[in-house]
């Protein structure tokens, strides 16, 4: 933002000094479904990759000595960043959808606005686990069908196969397109807004706020 850093190579794009509120959205889905592509399409920065150490018990390490044992494992994930205004920065995380990564999501999901479940209609079963986990966690989400040119399924067929309630938006997208990926994020945030407005209107934290069929 200022020239004070010109003595160092511009290897990264820093945030403005007023940035003070980080938000999170998670993009989750099966192997190769386009998570990294979607993050790249809308990010202000080239997606970065990092990793977290997990103990087998599934927590992040509480005690660094745990790293020495054989019980820890590392999980990589990538992320991008969008500056929304002078104060607010949205971080987008691409998280692997396989069941063995559930502990990573549980940490990523904590405090997220919501999630995008990317599905490839040729491999719908790959997204079952992610959807289950999000519902279990009470994290609001939408489903986006990334078009890989597979056999056409109607929205109803996809909804049925995924056992999605009518209240959860289901849209088509092309993760390679910035406009399309931006549209996916807008659909998610509009959904969150509707849920939030409904829960405010009903006064208390009713079960309808999370758009789930069952109460906690």
């Amino acid at each position, binding site marked *: 933002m200022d020239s004070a850093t010109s003595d160092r190579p511009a290897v990264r794009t820093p945030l403005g000094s007023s940035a003070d509120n*980080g938000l*999170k959205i998670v993009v989750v889905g099966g192997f190769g479904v386009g998570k990294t592509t979607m993050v790249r399409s809308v990010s202000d920065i080239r997606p970065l990759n990092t*990793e977290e150490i997990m103990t087998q018990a599934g927590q992040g390490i509480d005690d660094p*000595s745990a790293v020495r044992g054989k019980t820890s494992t590392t999980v990589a994930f990538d992320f991008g960043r*969008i500056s929304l205004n002078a104060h607010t920065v949205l971080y987008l995380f691409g998280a692997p959808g396989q069941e063995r990564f559930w502990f990573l999501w549980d940490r990523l999901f904590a405090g997220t606005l919501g999630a995008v479940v990317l599905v490839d209609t040729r491999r719908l079963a790959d997204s079952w686990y992610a959807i289950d986990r999000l519902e279990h966690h009470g994290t609001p989400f939408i489903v986006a069908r990334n078009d890989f040119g597979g056999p056409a399924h109607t929205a109803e067929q996809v909804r049925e196969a995924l056992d999605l309630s009518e209240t959860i938006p289901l849209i088509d997208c092309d993760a390679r397109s910035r406009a399309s990926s931006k549209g996916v994020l807008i659909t998610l945030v509009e959904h969150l807004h509707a*849920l939030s407005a409904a829960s405010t209107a009903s006064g208390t934290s009713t079960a309808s*706020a999370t758009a789930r069929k069952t109460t906690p």
Partner: protein
Amino acid sequence: MSRPGRDDDPDRLYTLTGGRSRAETDAFDLVTLVVSECEPATGMQSEHVRILRLCEHPTAVVEVAAHLNLPVSIVKILLSDLLALGRITARHPRMTAGAAQLPDTDLLEQVLVGLRNL
């Protein structure tokens, strides 16, 4: 180069964090923005120096981890040391509600405006 990286053996990571048990690393979210409050000084641990340089501008915990090529958990320990010494400050996310609790509509409207302007 002996820069710590993801291929480090666990003993190296253990040494890096001084083998201490975690103090207040829960204070840091992945998207907590970290800001340096002082210049790096001679004699500081090299990872601390790198963090102080990176965080001349607000930088999220997860970005620090990516740039230092270190696992997030290790970076949180380094950051809690720097925080305890007053060498950094932390700007925590204001949307820290539990998963079942939704963000308020004002915040979501701001997000929508930002996204539509992309």
